[in-house]
């Protein structure tokens, strides 16, 4: 059982404040992904957790055992934290065979020889690389090295497994294979995993929870679905999702009960229960806001579907890409992107009908950049709106 709690972690490199008041709770069995662009502090957070870096401020506990208490200058040694780490570079020892690499930590624990043999082979089998036990790292492909690195990390049966951008050195196809592999590993071992990546697809596909980092701070902690549907601010919304979310300039007015939003798409009214009332929403006067519209939430019809939220649009460009088609549309000078499954052909400047789903839109206060209206996470097309 391992529940990890980080509280008020601050980390400085000289005057450079790289981690700002990080608070993070990782429940037992979580697959927690630290997601963010490079240089946002996610790897540093991982290294603080592992003990390779020392925070200047804050505490960390694992199952109520104090691991870090920076004010008392207490830092448990990395090897006594019951965790293991897979490095981005794999950091396999080039002078040791696969077997020796995996056995190293066990040897230090003074395990018996037969026991080491058994444990190592179990780890190699889990990663399906038992036939490479006698090879040296430079005799293996990138994907195989990756598996060795993971095998080495799981051999000591850590309660917490840390993974630092483990897939970034692999090619696209291997990456998809390894994603499946890691997900399976998480299920099978039940180990708590902290996973660092800048790749949102990895984060969304594998995690049980995602902590989104921005400039040394955590801006949002949520499940993948929640993060995707309701990014907490404009930057987060912009970062999550590929192709990118559409931002539509709009004017909002909140009368204390309903939020009226007027944009190129006409007026939408949102009731109070969908609003995030703890955020700044000016009352009784018009303010600038931004509509967040995911490309896959735009339905395109060539004939008028007679839906209440239908808007007439013009096709600006059409990009069929096999499994999906990206369509750039304009409505009264506002450009936005829609995505449709399968191959669809449109002519340039063709008139089409677009059905929007306001319930699935996000509304942001332009001034603060913060989310003020939730999108529904569960939806059935055509039913709710």
């Amino acid at each position, binding site marked *: 059982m391992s529940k990890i709690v980080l509280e008020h972690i601050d980390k400085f490199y000289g005057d450079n404040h790289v981690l700002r008041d990080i608070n993070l709770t990782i429940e037992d069995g979580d697959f927690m992904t630290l997601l963010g662009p490079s240089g946002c502090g996610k790897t540093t957070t991982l290294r603080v957790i*592992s003990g*390779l870096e020392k925070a200047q401020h804050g505490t960390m506990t694992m199952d109520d055992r104090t691991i870090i208490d920076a*004010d008392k*200058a207490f830092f448990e040694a990395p090897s006594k934290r019951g965790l293991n*780490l897979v490095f981005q*570079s794999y*950091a396999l020892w080039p002078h040791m065979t696969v077997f020796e690499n995996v056995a*190293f930590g066990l040897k230090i624990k003074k395990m018996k020889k037969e026991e080491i043999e058994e444990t190592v082979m179990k780890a190699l089998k889990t990663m399906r690389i038992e036939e490479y036990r006698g090879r040296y790292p430079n005799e293996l492909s990138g994907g195989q090295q990756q598996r060795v690195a993971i095998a080495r990390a799981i051999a000591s049966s850590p309660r917490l497994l840390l993974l630092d951008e483990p897939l970034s050195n692999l090619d696209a196809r291997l990456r998809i294979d390894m994603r499946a592999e890691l997900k399976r590993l998480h299920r099978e071992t039940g180990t708590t995993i902290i996973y660092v990546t800048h790749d949102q697809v990895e984060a969304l596909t594998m995690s049980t929870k995602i902590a989104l980092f921005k400039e040394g701070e955590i801006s949002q902690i949520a499940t993948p679905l929640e993060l995707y549907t309701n990014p907490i601010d404009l930057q987060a919304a912009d970062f999550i999702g590929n192709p990118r979310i559409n931002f539509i300039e709009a004017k909002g007015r909140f009368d204390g009960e309903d939020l009226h939003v007027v944009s190129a798409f006409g007026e939408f009214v949102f009731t109070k229960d969908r609003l995030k009332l703890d955020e700044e929403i000016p009352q009784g006067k018009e303010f600038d806001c931004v509509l967040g519209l995911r490309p896959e939430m735009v339905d395109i019809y060539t004939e008028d579907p007679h839906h209440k939220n239908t808007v007439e649009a013009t096709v600006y460009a059409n990009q069929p890409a096999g499994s999906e088609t990206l369509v750039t549309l304009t409505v009264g000078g506002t450009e936005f992107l829609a995505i449709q499954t399968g191959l669809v052909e449109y002519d340039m400047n063709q008139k089409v009908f677009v059905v929007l789903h306001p319930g699935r839109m996000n509304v942001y206060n332009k001034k603060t950049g913060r989310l003020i209206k939730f999108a529904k996470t569960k939806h059935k097309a055509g039913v709710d709106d």
Partner: protein
Amino acid sequence: MAKKGWSRPPMTKERLRNQFRSLIGNPFNVIVFITLLLLFTLIIIPLLAMVQNTFVVAKSELRNIPGAKIGDYTLWYWKYLLASPLTKTILWVPLRNSLIIGAFVTVVSVPLGALMAWLMVRTDIPGKKLLSALILIPYMIPSWCKALSWMTIFRNPKMGGNGVLTSLGIPVPDWLSSGFIPIIIVMTMHYYAFSYIMASGALRSINSELEEMGEIQGATKAQILKSITLPLILPSILSATIMTISKSIGTYGVAARLGGNNPDGTPFYVLATRMKDFINNSPKGVGYAMSLLMILLAAGTIIVNQKLIGTRKSYATIGGKGTRSNLIPLRGAKYPMLIIISVFLVIAMVMPVFFLVMESFQIVPGAGYGPDNLTLYAWIGELQSAPNPAFNQNGLFKNSEFARALGNTVKLSLIASLITAVFGQFFGYITTRGRGKWYGNMVEQLIFIPYLMPGVAFSAIYFSMFSQPRLGGLIPSLYGTFTLILLVSIVKHFPFASRSGSSNMMQISVELEEAASINGAGFWRRIRSIVIPLAKNGFLSGFLLSFISIAKELDLIAILMTPKNYTLSFLAFDYSKEAMPQVADAICIVIIVFILVTNRIADKFGGNVSKSM
């Protein structure tokens, strides 16, 4: 959410205890501490001690300074050096000589080295493989060996005998036999290597795409060379220039051997030789003051270089990607260029070795190579059967002095290079792991200090520090001991060893160690299981290169020598002053063979003479 800057939490007892524990509990910290202490003791304190010695009355000056007691504070030494009737002869003239030599050596050797580098790296000059194997051999021959060889050819009776030319009836003018010209030529044949090594390194790092881009823009070969290639390697040429000046000003052996006399009969001095005379004779304090001036001069030029190059160096390494580089066809110039390099190799490598070998077989030096003048005496002769009454020593292999010097050399080189190499790896470890941290920078800077000092000045420091008991007799006077020579050899080679160590450690990614430490390996376990196995080859090549360097060292130990500690280099140097150059020549040959063989071995482990600079 952002908080203001970090403020230190209150100093509680518990915090203090934990901090202390992690400080002491980590062997790395302890090692850093010991290293700093060691460097401070071995470099800073001796330097300060020498500075102090220039201001304190020594016993030998009691009669010169009326009323003074030993240990009194005095400006006498500095006044003697800088503001006395003797100042012109003891300071300005040697300084002028040193500067003239430095300037001419630089003007000749830097373009020479750069040209050869360009030919070897960027052109299609024929026979490249062979040439590149040979081109640094002249540099491996100790410079004082080349000086001895010069004498075998150009000696005239004024320099104590005949050389090859005078024996053929060709009179050798004094200016060709000793003084500026021979010193400049011999040093040029040595220090060309700096600009060769640096320029070829820079040329290799230039992506040929940069030049090809110029070609696409319509530039001619000459234009490309002038406006693209040259500016790109300019920083390294500038570095080489400064290095050459600094080194040639500080060289002792060549100037001591070839200095000879001025036309008026007084000895020809450069700073280094003048200083050594003061230190080995008297007043020593003046010698120390002179060596401080030499250090300032040498360190000054190098520091200027660092400041000058520092910001510009960055582009010297641009474009490591393109290892493929298209060679520039020399066309008609192919063979003339080949001839230039060949002539250089003949003059700087073949001739010195040839004439050293030949003279070692002569009965009377400079009496021709007729069968009646040939003997193996210098190698295996015994005194009672000496063919030449001037011989006062047994031949090399029958000579107990040679045996002892060989023993000393092997002992010194082996112990010193082993210790240097081990320390070098540790220093390298500390500087790479502590890069950007205060202790890393501090170790790096401390280690750099011996590099700034000419060898002969550096040994002056040790001489002044250890020629008297220190710490109230806890450290006895070390003058005349093997320990002192060992110590000075070790510390002087720290900069090189630490550079080889840090380039070695740089290849061992920190993550490899972090991975081990997460798996529970402590500091020593990481060193043993991860660092040492991976550092082995680099260590070995670093060790062998220090070994060569220490084995051939002369300048560094000349001041500290006493007969029972003679090394091969010093023995040869000493013999060459007597009427028996043949044995000196034979020793030179032994040393050269030894160096070439060791270098070959070092090569196998990835060592390279260019790293030893």
